[in-house]
């Protein structure tokens, strides 16, 4: 998609444009767009793995069932280890988040695809949902005691108000870092891939560009999984503040 006409023109950000799936026109809130398509593909992929893959309910699992069980066990352990025993109740929510982020990231690596998690709108919605959910859950479960999290009782009394301010700021920055981290990683990686893809059309550097693309693609694969993991484990850490006994 790079060299059109005379000059080398690379549009690494064009891949992120939201456009209607059918025809041209304005994007209304209900318009089926490429975002819609890839979100639904993520849903279908998750359904294929978690529902169709486990349809035989075998005691000795098939390959797909093994993978589904592996993910189940992995996230279940994570929730139990990080958020504590009380956090296991919220395991389905964490599982939903993890599977969505993982599959959206991985589907985004298919050439010509659209990476839904590279959009701040998507990740900010996820992060805000986690933030609001955890805050409301903490207030509901602990009442005013939840606010004790900001009052560091182990620090000297004189320092506590200052620490409280810092803790409060860091608490409210959480959804920002939570969402920007994911969107930024995905966007940067895909933009770099696109830039190299543009260079690949220049005969002189194309071997280097293709080699670099291969390497970055492998890196992006890793980043996709790691970012899904990071997003999920941070969710668990935040969940622990709401349901756990101790605070960090």
């Amino acid at each position: 998609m790079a060299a059109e006409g005379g000059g080398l023109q690379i549009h690494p950000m064009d891949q992120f444009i939201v456009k209607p799936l059918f025809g041209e026109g304005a994007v209304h809130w209900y318009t089926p767009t490429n975002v819609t398509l890839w979100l639904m593909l993520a849903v279908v992929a998750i359904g294929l793995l978690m529902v169709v893959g486990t349809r035989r309910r075998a005691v000795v699992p098939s390959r797909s069932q093994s993978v589904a069980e592996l993910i189940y066990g992995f996230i279940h352990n994570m929730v139990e280890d990080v958020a504590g025993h009380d956090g296991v109740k919220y395991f389905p929510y964490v599982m939903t988040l993890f599977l969505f982020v993982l599959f959206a990231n991985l589907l985004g690596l298919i050439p010509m695809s659209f990476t839904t998690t590279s959009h701040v709108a998507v990740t900010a919605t996820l992060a805000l949902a986690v933030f609001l959910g955890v805050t409301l859950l903490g207030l509901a479960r602990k009442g005013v005691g939840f606010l004790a999290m900001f009052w560091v009782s182990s620090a000297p009394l004189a320092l506590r108000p200052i620490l409280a301010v810092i803790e409060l700021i860091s608490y409210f920055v959480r959804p920002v870092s939570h969402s920007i981290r994911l969107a930024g990683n995905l966007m940067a990686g895909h933009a770099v891939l696109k830039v190299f893809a543009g260079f690949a059309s220049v005969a002189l550097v194309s071997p280097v560009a293709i080699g670099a693309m291969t390497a970055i693609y492998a890196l992006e694969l890793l980043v996709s999984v790691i970012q899904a993991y990071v997003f999920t484990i941070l969710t668990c850490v935040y969940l622990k503040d709401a349901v756990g006994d101790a605070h960090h």
Partner: protein
Amino acid sequence: MATEAGGAAQSVGMPQLDFTTYGNQIFWLVVALVAIYLLLTRIALPRIGAVLAERKGTVANDLAAAEDLKERASAAEAAYQKALADARAEAARIIAEAKAEIQADLARALAEADADISARAAESERRIAEIRASAMQSVAEVARDTAAELVAVLGGSADAAALEAAVGARMKGQPS
């Protein structure tokens, strides 16, 4: 850098910051999340949880069964060892009994033989004594006759009683 490239390519800059699409994205995201959540909570998670629990149960059952079988095997081995030990003890007892019996038989046979031998020896001694006595008597008779003859030849008449006494005294004084 990316922003610059994007900005050069199109007027809106980063598509991520195009707020007109936010409503659309958020709406469809919520739809997708609800769909995933329903898929997971209605079908996938209970199913996988059940399978894992079932597998855990099966494994636990199999382990318990294996433990049971192992116990039975060790019990059987213990019984076998006990039977073996019993058999050994029985064999040792039988051997000891046989030995004792043989010993007793031997002792009885020896005693019988000893008794027989001593009886025979006594008999032989008795016979020897008899023979000796009869020999002594013969010697005495011969001595007496010889003495009587000698006395007669020398011209005397031997008194039988005196001869008898004289020969008896000699024979007593000079044992065979």
